[in-house]
């Protein structure tokens, strides 16, 4: 049942030009950034050879690439997630799901999986770009996998935030603005963490980049995993509760 909803969601996404154009623009910008990094690496390579413990391809190309992907998906996910629920609320198709013998948590999980499927394609496309470096060099595969895991978790958390925001309004635009606000807040809140004070440790913990950076540097810590799982779980539970209350809304 969850898969039925997810498949429909993914299908509708690809039947509209939105998904295709987003993927195309995203891939173009990433390719550009990737080539710029590659060019820079080629320029400084002679100097690196003479250094001891010099940073490798993974440090200089893959890690910047992945943090660019993270920023780009942050800009992209609200556009994909905004229609998940609010579009159905507006057009009245949500009645179909509500009158079907499906629990609300399954509806939410189905919608979420549909979006994750789309994000999986983006993740795959950017990892292929990184893996293409294997053709001419050696990669730190452990670090690459840790980075991919981090990237996947950032996307999954952003998707959960977007899904919750999309339940809050029948206007997709409002849902998108809400998710942009919350995601940028989660991304930038650690700017305050630089300042001295009691709050800074908390702010640093709330901020997504803190956890993502650990993974980019090859460090997979269970506390970071817990952060992302908490974030995803909280948003999905809030979404379920919100939809449940829609039935009772005056």
């Amino acid at each position, binding site marked *: 049942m969850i898969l039925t909803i997810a498949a*429909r969601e993914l299908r509708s996404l690809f039947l509209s030009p939105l998904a295709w154009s987003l993927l195309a623009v995203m891939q173009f910008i990433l390719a550009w950034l990737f080539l710029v990094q590659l060019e820079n690496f080629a320029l400084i390579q002679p100097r690196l050879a003479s250094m001891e413990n010099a940073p490798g391809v993974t440090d200089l190309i893959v890690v910047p690439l992945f943090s660019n992907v993270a920023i780009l998906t942050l800009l992209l996910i609200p556009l994909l997630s905004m229609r998940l629920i609010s579009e159905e609320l507006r*057009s009245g198709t949500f*009645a179909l799901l509500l009158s079907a013998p499906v629990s609300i948590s399954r509806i939410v999980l189905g919608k979420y999986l549909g979006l994750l499927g789309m994000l999986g394609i983006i993740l795959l496309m950017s990892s292929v770009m990184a893996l293409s470096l294997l053709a001419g060099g050696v990669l730190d595969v452990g670090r690459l996998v840790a980075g991919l895991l981090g990237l996947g978790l950032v996307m999954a958390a952003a998707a959960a935030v977007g899904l919750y925001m999309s339940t809050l309004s029948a206007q997709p635009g409002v849902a998108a603005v809400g998710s942009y606000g919350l995601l940028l807040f989660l991304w930038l809140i650690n700017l305050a963490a630089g300042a001295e004070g009691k709050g800074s440790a908390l702010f640093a913990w709330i901020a997504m980049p803190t956890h993502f950076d650990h993974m980019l540097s090859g460090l997979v810590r269970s506390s970071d995993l817990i952060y992302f799982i908490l974030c995803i779980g909280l948003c999905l539970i809030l979404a379920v509760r919100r939809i449940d209350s829609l039935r009772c809304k005056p």
Partner: protein
Amino acid sequence: MKPLIKTEGLYRYYGDHCAVQNLSLELYPGEVLGLLGPNGAGKSSTLRMIAGNLAPSAGSIWVDGVDLQSDPIQAKSVLGYLPENPPLYPELTVDEYLRYCARLHCVSGGAVDQAVSDAKGRCGLSEVGRRLIGNLSKGYQQRVGIAQALVHNPKVVILDEPTVGLDPIQIREIRRLIGDLSSERGVILSTHILPEVQAICSRVLILHRGEQAYASSLEHDANRVNESFVIRLKQPPELASLSQIQGISHVDQLSKGQYRLCLSGTESSASNLAEQLVQAGWGLEELIPEQPGLEQIFVRITTGEQTPP
């Protein structure tokens, strides 16, 4: 017999506004129950509550003996619901959409294709299966909406204004379809069109300001006794001589040459009346049996008017 739908003391508030109050109804297999009422009478709210789309403020609903509040999944599995605006995805084809609806309603994998082609056949959609829903006309979209409510073969079909936007021929087809459906299951529908209720419903419930204002079963048997007739005469006589016709209790003049005759009892019949009118040589041009009181009741309830005696 166990009712397919039973509601007790249903209330629904929107803020301070009470849309449905103290509504109790029952639907049995083989019945077509019509909810009749002017716009804003609470018809759609009632149907949305029964379909599990809207939580009632108070009261309970049982679907096929299962409490909709405590076991919604089980209860919803026997329901098919067509909301006021058909819940269609314009980017899917009719086949894709109906297949999705069938799977959503737990039709098992192998039976999906059969269920979809059955539903299409019933609603006259066999030829548009591969077309995009967004490109279909309003009438066809409405039919896709009805097909969606039938695809999983539910015991109870809930239709919110099913004939809106259809042309007269399509309306006739849909009415026939509803008649077919009711032979094996219960149908509950809402409308504000009186003849529709008289044509297809076996029972009617008139709602006014969220309250049940009138409930009655409609008899469809041919030998029903009409209580009043409207006649038109070419050479109208004095009113007094009309009222002396045997078996007439009351005469109203509606316009020049047009009268309403009320029969005094069951012993007088239309043929008897016609015979007398022709014999009197008044030039009988029309003899129309008046529909039994539903329209008068509806108008009286919804406008607060008194109908003429």
